């Protein structure tokens, strides 16, 4: 019947779009950047300073919000949002603005050891999309040692 719960999850290709469009942190950060760049009366090509500190503060603030209605509605894709938000911090060279150990502890609590893959948050079903996000976040923190790389790769190849 059902070999793995993950087989009932969203099809991979479409959830990649969900990953891109659904992440609140990423969408909000992108919207924020776009809003900044869209300032009227600025001529094309004229260089402007990126308000990096504001973006960092915004992402860190969003990360701490866990109890609002909007956050709860996005609870199931939080791991993916973590990837987008943390990648932005990394690009801005501000990854130290968050506590790495806390993140890694939380990521490992989203792990499904029997299936060797990840759900989008604690208690949520595993899916290859969040398995990818977990790997990406561990790379950002240079902590791939926290997982059994061969087993995870084997699991992904079976999707």
């Amino acid at each position, binding site marked *: *019947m*059902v070999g793995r*719960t993950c087989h*009932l*999850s*969203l*099809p991979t290709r*479409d*959830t990649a*779009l*969900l990953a891109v*469009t*659904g992440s*609140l942190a990423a*969408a909000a950060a992108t919207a924020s950047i776009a809003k900044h760049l869209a300032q009227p009366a600025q001529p*094309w*090509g004229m260089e402007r300073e990126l308000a990096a500190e504001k973006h960092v503060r915004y992402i860190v603030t969003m990360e701490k919000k866990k*109890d*609002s*209605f909007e956050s*709860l*509605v996005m*609870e*199931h*894709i939080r791991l993916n949002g973590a990837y987008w938000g943390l990648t932005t911090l990394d690009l801005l060279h501000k990854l130290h603005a968050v506590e790495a150990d806390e993140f890694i502890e939380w990521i490992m609590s989203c792990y499904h050891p029997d299936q060797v893959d990840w*759900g*989008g948050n604690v*208690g*949520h*079903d595993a*899916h290859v999309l969040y398995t990818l996000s977990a790997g990406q976040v561990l790379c950002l923190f240079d902590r791939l040692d926290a997982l059994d790389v061969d087993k995870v790769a084997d699991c992904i190849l079976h999707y």
Partner: protein
Amino acid sequence: MHGRPRRPDKPEDAAAAEAKAAKLRVLQAQVLHNHHSRTYTKEALGLSFKLLEINPEAYTAWNYRKLAFQHNIGELSEPEAIKSAIDDELRVVEVALRQNPKSYGAWYHRKWLLNQKLAPVDFKCEFGLLDKLLKVDARNFHGWNYRRFLARFMGVPEEEELKYTMDKISDNFSNYSAWHNRSILLSNLLIKQSKGFESKQKIFSEEFELVTQALFTDPSDQSGWFYHLWLLAQTSSPENPQLIASWPSNGSNLSLSSLSSICCYSLKEGILPIVLYFNEPVKGLSSSSVSLNSDLVVSKNIQWRPLSVTDSGHSNCWVTYLEVSNLECNSLQQFSVEVSITNSDEIVSRSGSNYNCPVHFSFTFELSNNDSTAKDIDPIHELISWDFSEPLLSHVNPSCICFEQLKITNSLVHKESNWHLERLSDEIDLFRELHDDNSKFAKLTLARLLLACAAIKSRGSSLVERKGYCEESLGLFNDLIDLDPSHKRYYEDERSLVLMDQLTCDMEAFKKYCSVKALPKLAPLNHVQLCRLSLTRIGFAERLLWVQMLDLSHNNLRSIEGLEALQQLVCLNLGNNQISSFTALEPLTKIISLKVLDLSCNEIGTHPIDTTRYICPSPFSHRVEACEAFEECRKKNINVEEFWDAILFFKHVNLVQLCLEGNAVTNKENLRTLVVTLNPSLKWLDGKFVH
């Protein structure tokens, strides 16, 4: 999620939101608990329904409902009860879609239910649901995906679905999904030669009229322009792949040092490349689809390799290498080679069309005892000067004359081209009328139409007319660069390709750029100088297969894709361009004969990844395996992580002369060591003698 305005919080709103959030938090926890404990009671299912009503994207809840459905359906045996269970589940999906018509989980769940095939599907109800949803949002791609799923599931004829797209387009021209669906359906119907779809010409003429109507109605709406682009692609290229160039060319005679022949420098390495260039990417070249006959005992291991970097295995340009180093020659000896392609079912284009133009050409090459002596002395040991080549015309035997492209024509090609040309000419006339100084879509489409005509004209002999098309399209791209600066690079690249076409399409005019370089102990090298032309990309490499010395300096090149086809290239000058990485130089690693490379005054070192391509080989893309060169460099204390791109490049070239000055990368320590280590044959670096 999108398009929600941000409003400052009011105190009473905050309280309501907090209560709402608390309720949702409890609900989510309950559903997850029921999921983990495999509780599938009516009450438990009711909770998951409430959750999905609020948050249709909670994928775990959809999984839970699938498991519960399977568990509970196992206890039912009466068809009525089963149908009722399915209807209940479908109702949950409808409620979720009312909340969010673009919920992936909801649409997937609906497909999953139908695929269970436990009860007859009420298709009237399904199509009714779609009609409602597409009335609310006619472009909802989930709805269109579901419609395609239903049509296949139910076996709806594609002709009927085509009518549906027509209805939707009539309602509103601005419907990307309807146009897209229409293109898919038409492709299938034409391939199957369904009744009423036997004539491509008739169908496409009608489609052009349809989309032109839409474009004239609202030129600023992009959806019709995309459909027009698809139609243009169907109309502007031959239906079957064609061989449009080869090297060596028919009737040529090659050698290493004989002044009366064409220089083939790779004979020094005992290798003779044979290049086949097609008008579109193809695959399936093999020793059975392309036959080689020669005085030599041709090895059974003849392998054709694609030269362009693709993932699909298709390529415009294919090469095989004849090994001739084992031949023993006591005196001057001439060998002949014949290459034939008959009608081949093996050679196919991306669209699945077969190669169907038989081609036959032959050439000869010379080997002599003197050549074996020459192997020990490198003819390129003196620093190459990029000026002072002899004019082509002064040479006794101008070797360009036999470099014309293979002429491949037959009545079928002409017949089809006539219709294509007629159709395109009509479109050009229409778009010249529509031509509005501020419409970038009209300008871009007109430019594309003109270039499609020029491409067809190049298969005939009307040079004057085709030059006119090229000139007009150049003007349009210049306008577009000013009109649409955010796409400047794209227009510059397109303009560059048109310039390359203009330069090379007329052999008489092209001779102005051609000369001959005489070097001791070598047959003369064919030299082409295309400097200071603002080129950003290389095009029409099939017309340059014979070039051995190429000067592209003082342009704006960011990419050199296409140069890999120049298997005779010995000397290349890319000085004063905008190459920003070693990875952008990957095409050069496929040219065995390349010995002299000038990269001075570029931007190498500013970025390790070739940003002109979606994918380029790098350790990050898992398309490059760890190689011995990495270890070799590690032993010399070269930082492999820092220089991986340089290592991958220099490992695969075998240069005698290299110039890198004026690039950011030259400031790095160890680069010189790296270059010399991986290129032991290097004699000149930045104009100075090595060792």
